[in-house]
């Protein structure tokens, strides 16, 4: 299952589906970094609203995506972690340290617009 990546100005938006396998996540990781390079994007929003399970592999992949994108000089914001998923992540001991998060896509876009407005 491929994750659609949308270009929105200087930002990229990747929307996760529920049933992502490890292979899908790995593919997304490479795809996103390549697109950031191709479009010279300033930031990536990863929308995980539809994800009903965030296990250790998925959260590690998200952290890796954020770190790789940072190395390209761009920023990552994870949006839409559901309350139940957040609860399970905490129980499991998973953190997304050093990765920006926002409530939903709208908040994520607002955060990035604000951030890049001041530096432009």
């Amino acid at each position, binding site marked *: 299952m491929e994750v659609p990546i949308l270009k929105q100005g200087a930002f990229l938006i990747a929307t996760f589906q529920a049933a992502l*396998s490890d292979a899908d996540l790995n593919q997304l990781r490479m795809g996103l970094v390549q697109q950031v390079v191709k479009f010279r994007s300033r930031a990536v929003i990863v929308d995980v609203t539809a994800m009903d399970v965030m296990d250790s592999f998925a959260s590690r992949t998200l952290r890796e995506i954020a770190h790789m994108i940072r190395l390209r000089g761009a920023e990552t914001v994870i949006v839409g972690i559901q309350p139940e998923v957040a*609860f*399970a992540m905490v*129980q*499991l*001991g998973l953190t997304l340290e050093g990765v920006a998060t926002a409530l939903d896509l709208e908040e994520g876009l607002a955060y990035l617009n604000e951030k890049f407005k001041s530096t432009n």
Partner: protein
Amino acid sequence: MSAGEIRVAIKSDQDIVVARQRGRALAAELGFSSGDATLIATAISELARNIVSYARKGQITVKMVNGMDRQGISVIASDEGPGIPDIRQALRDGFSTSGSLGLGLPGVRRLMDEFEIASEPGRGTTVTVKKWKP
């Protein structure tokens, strides 16, 4: 296989997704809240991933269980892989031999109400976890 029981063969990362989706559906069918179903599905995902990472193949069984005065769900992850030489070490946070996060087993223990593990080097591992309905 009786009603209220599912069995998923685990051979690849795609099977992990199937196991957790079917496990969540069964949990919902048994009347678990959506929050508890998420915890159960997450535990299944971690246990199935351990099978793929360490044993390559195995099986996840999810079924209804009856306690003295309560109903619950049990998840059994079994494989015939290399087994775990030191179970105490494997249950410590941060321990891993496969280059993963090493949060698997202690994390799964926290997600569920009961946790049991039996492992014999060279013979395989069986992890049984349960969650009771409040």
